[in-house]
């Protein structure tokens, strides 16, 4: 009895340590919190998936660990000793099929709703940004304001172009490519879209936090792909207006 009690204590302590170390980490597990309205939607969804994942991992790893410890072959036993020879348990099998079905239905429904909100496009955006990717750089145009920012050819040590977006305003991004497939990704916005030659992809970003955000090309596009970066700086409306009025030149 004492042996079993101490074993239970050890297991309980181990579980506590693991749970504590997991929860003490940021609950985002390193995922940026999303600096746009669309990104915040996706971040909320991430948290649900993350905790569902932790729950499944704890359950399955727990069952595996229990099997490995409890049912290990003891010293006095030999190859000739057999385990219990049961083959199946139909009610149990139905239950462990049904539970994942319920989990994925819930996750899919949540994910469907989030995609609807994060990818919905406003009919009346405040700013329109035409982003054209090329090998290897970006041409960012504001057609309503008649200004444009164009990359220098990307290479090691050459910083990518910088654009400003106004805080709290909805910017519609019209994305395309004029040669191969590229992709526009700002990790802090939790959003990327492919830039495909011959097609225009449209999505909205509504920044909710001032800051400087790193953007990359995330679809492999050839030799200088690694250097095809850009910067998005989210500023207030007046600074954005000044920048546009100066012809989008660097401050």
């Amino acid at each position: 009895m004492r042996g079993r009690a101490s074993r239970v204590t050890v297991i309980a302590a181990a579980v506590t340590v693991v749970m504590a170390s997991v929860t003490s980490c940021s609950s985002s597990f390193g995922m940026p919190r999303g600096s746009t309205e669309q990104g915040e939607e996706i971040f909320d969804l991430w948290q649900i998936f993350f905790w569902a994942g932790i729950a499944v991992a704890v359950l399955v790893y727990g069952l595996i660990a229990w099997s490995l410890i409890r049912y290990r072959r003891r010293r006095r036993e030999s190859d000739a000793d057999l385990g219990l020879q049961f083959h199946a348990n139909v009610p149990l099998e139905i239950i462990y099929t049904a539970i994942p079905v319920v989990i994925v239905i819930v996750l899919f429904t949540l994910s469907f709703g989030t995609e609807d909100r994060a990818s919905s496009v406003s009919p009346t955006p405040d700013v329109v940004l035409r982003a054209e990717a090329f090998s290897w750089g970006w041409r960012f145009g504001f057609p309503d304001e008649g200004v444009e920012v164009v990359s220098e050819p990307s290479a090691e040590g050459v910083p990518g172009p910088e654009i400003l977006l106004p805080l709290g305003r909805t910017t519609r991004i019209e994305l395309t490519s004029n040669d191969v497939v590229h992709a526009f990704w700002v990790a802090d916005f939790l959003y990327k879209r492919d830039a495909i030659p011959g097609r225009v992809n449209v999505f909205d970003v509504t920044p909710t936090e001032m800051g400087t955000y790193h953007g990359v090309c995330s679809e492999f596009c050839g030799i200088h792909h690694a250097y095809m970066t850009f910067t998005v700086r989210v500023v207030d409306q007046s600074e954005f207006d000044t920048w546009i009025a100066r012809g989008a030149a660097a401050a």
Partner: protein
Amino acid sequence: MTTTDHKKLGIMYCVTAFTFFLIGGALAGAMRAELADTGSQLVGAQSYNTLFTVHGIIMIFLFVAPFGVGLANYLVPLQIGAPDMAFPRLNAMGYWFFAGGGLLVLLSSFASDAGGVATGWYLYPPLSGPRYSPGVGPDLLILGLALVAISTVMSGVNVITTTFLMRAPGMTMWRLPVFTWNVVVTAILGLVAFPPAVAAFVLLLFDRRLAGQAFDPLGGGDPIVYQHLFWFLGHPEVYILILPFFGVITETIPVFSRKPLFGYTGFILATLAIGALSTGVWAHHMFTTGVVDNPFFSAMTFTIAVPTGVKFFNWIGTMWGGKLSFRVPMLFSIGFLLNFLIGGITGVMLASAPLDFQLADSYFLVSHFHYTMMGGSVFGIFAAIYFWWPKAFGYMLSERFGRAVFALMLVGFNLTFWPQFVVGLRGMPRRIVDYAPGLGWDTPNLVSSLGALVLSAGVLLFLVDAFTSRRRRTPAGDDPWGGFSLEWATTSPPPEHNFSSLPRIRSERPAFDMRHPELVSGPPATASEPPA
């Protein structure tokens, strides 16, 4: 060279595939060395781009898939009690198509005039078209892949025919060993998935050499069509890469638990469900293109998590109430479970289209993929090597070395790939030769590169084990593990025609029944068995 014996061909497949594994691993080592620090130090951008392109193609098409074919070749006739495959000469031809195709792929990468192929393993046009990838390299690669694809179809036809027509009396489909079941489903997937890919490759070749413009928007073509055709291969392909190794660990776990597989019927149904669903999920690779019906492909992808989850319960239920002995094949099988679960959970995250908007083409995705393919399939391959080596060669590999190989690989693998989840969430895209400092990417990349060293040490130690065991030749006997399926009821190595006599087949584990007639359920042992 001219053999048509399925056992010799199986071993040739496995040895050739493992050689490609060492080459592909060396390429990965070069990439990890480059990424250990910011800046571009060791290899130039063009060479780096060739490294990841060729690494991907080698590991997927020339290592994991053909290793599965090799195992199938070696094991299917033995497990069903047949003297050979149904079409032995087609089998040999399939091997030589694979070897020749593999050579062409290597040539395309290292011996072409305009440098190596640098398009990423999925060869997206227009980047892979004549304007952006001139030179003969991509053409050789396409031809090599076409040969490999044809060889896959040949071996698929052979595995299916052999299993359906050449089973021993009493070996009904519901007594078929799980490994054989899994490679049959794999073979069917190969027949479904490879023809469209060959079509895509041929059209790409037209574009490159005959001004075809099927995929070039400037000529009225559409690069998205290529993506559909390619992923119609690409997604079933990852199940082609995992199903045989689901089969492997489902052979080893019962043997080392001294128990029958828990839920055999459910397991087979889950395998069939995975096979069927895997043909309907391809466009989840295209969520960010903005031109596919994301919710449909997302729902299909979520659904495939269910049969995969069922398998975990099959494996746990098999260990439950067992007498587990932790021999090396069992250790690698447990490693498979531990790693693959992470791959499965992150796979469900990637199945969600909005999460994929963040995770696609990032290091998070790279890590997810390696948790399934390296942590899963490759651990399954090592389980298979340690499990069936004594059967194939008649002597044992070392337990002591094997435990060290396993420990190094498990630690090294997780050290390499866990940090890649973190760095992916922090915004690091895949396929970059260099990254700027100050983005929080440095430390995880360094850890990952150190982990790759540990992982490589494990693989090298395995080679040492193979050579020293070969010299020591500790005799294996016919059945060193107390095996369940028919291959353990013949000699090690088996004679040319496999069996001089067959035991009666009354369940899915005839070799076990032979040793424990008192435990066989079903009709009394005196009844003569009707032919299947």
